[in-house]
């Protein structure tokens, strides 16, 4: 139940995520090695447009990528029809993107 558009969107989000994952891992290693405290981290992220864009893009890309992947799994294991799948895929995207962006807002606003 994957047409060319969703297929392309899933590949595109994978392309976007690849460098962001590397960046995220590098930041985590830096924060842990340097022994940054939570308040020191927040001190750097709060009010930073750069981190808001970095993690905001990440959260949206993850939500799109995961919703499309889950759509395939749900279709193949539960045999849901086209319209229920469309509703479920959109709902998954909204929930995942909402949770991700809320977290980004919490540390960068």
């Amino acid at each position: 139940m994957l047409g060319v558009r969703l297929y392309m969107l899933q590949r595109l989000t994978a392309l976007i995520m690849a460098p962001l994952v590397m960046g995220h891992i590098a930041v985590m290693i830096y924060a842990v090695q340097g022994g940054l405290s939570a308040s020191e981290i927040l001190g750097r992220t709060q009010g930073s447009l750069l981190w808001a864009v970095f993690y905001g893009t990440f959260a949206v890309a993850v939500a799109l990528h995961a919703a499309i992947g889950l759509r395939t799994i749900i279709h193949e294991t539960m045999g849901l029809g086209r319209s229920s799948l469309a509703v479920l895929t959109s709902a998954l995207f909204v929930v995942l993107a909402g949770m991700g962006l809320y977290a980004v807002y919490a540390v960068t606003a």
Partner: protein
Amino acid sequence: MTDLPPDTAPLRVSVWRGAKAGAFETFDVPMQESQTVLDLVAWIQQNADPTLAYRYACRVGMCGSCAMMVNGVPRWTCRTHVSKVMRGGTVQVAPLRNLPVIKDLAVDMDPFFDKWTEAGGAFFPTKSRADAVEPILPETPARQEADAAIECINCAVCYAACDVVSANPDYLGPAALNRAWSLVNDVKDGALDARLTAVSGAGGCHNCHSQQGCVAHCPNELNPTASIAGLKRATVRAALRGKS
């Protein structure tokens, strides 16, 4: 084939009987040298139970009509030696997976061939008999892709091996998509855009998980997964040009 020494134990062959509902029935079949799985089935039908239904034609791996599940694995039975597949003196033969069973070992191939049509498997000529014959250069990359895909014998072994076919009844399957790819690379064909649209729908090439069950089992050693990957690239390029 020659008979083995008379004291050789017969083979225990369990064969599916019935349609969707049914059961395995076991027959003792004398072992012979160089015996194929199709030989076992034919022996049963000719000597033990004439009502056993099964399908074959060429017996030499050309026609693609004899595929069955042998010990749970899809195989062309006319080219499968018993000695290679028997387990402790037994062999199990069942109808091909992923297709409706008509009776015993014969499945209904209609869904398989309907999907060839759906995937744009028909050739669309661009010339009439009045035109000169188009020279086809074997060394061009497109022709080499087409040649690699063209040796399919329509046996549906790959279709039976594909888990996406089992999970998604709309999925066109490896053979039909492989056929579409051979035509995408045929310079004589005139239906490229229509074919790329045909393989981009809800059951199209993008549903393939690339796990290569089809490649592992294709008796002609074709690579439908590579063909499908080619279709994925071609459809993405077409979509970027606004063609699908």
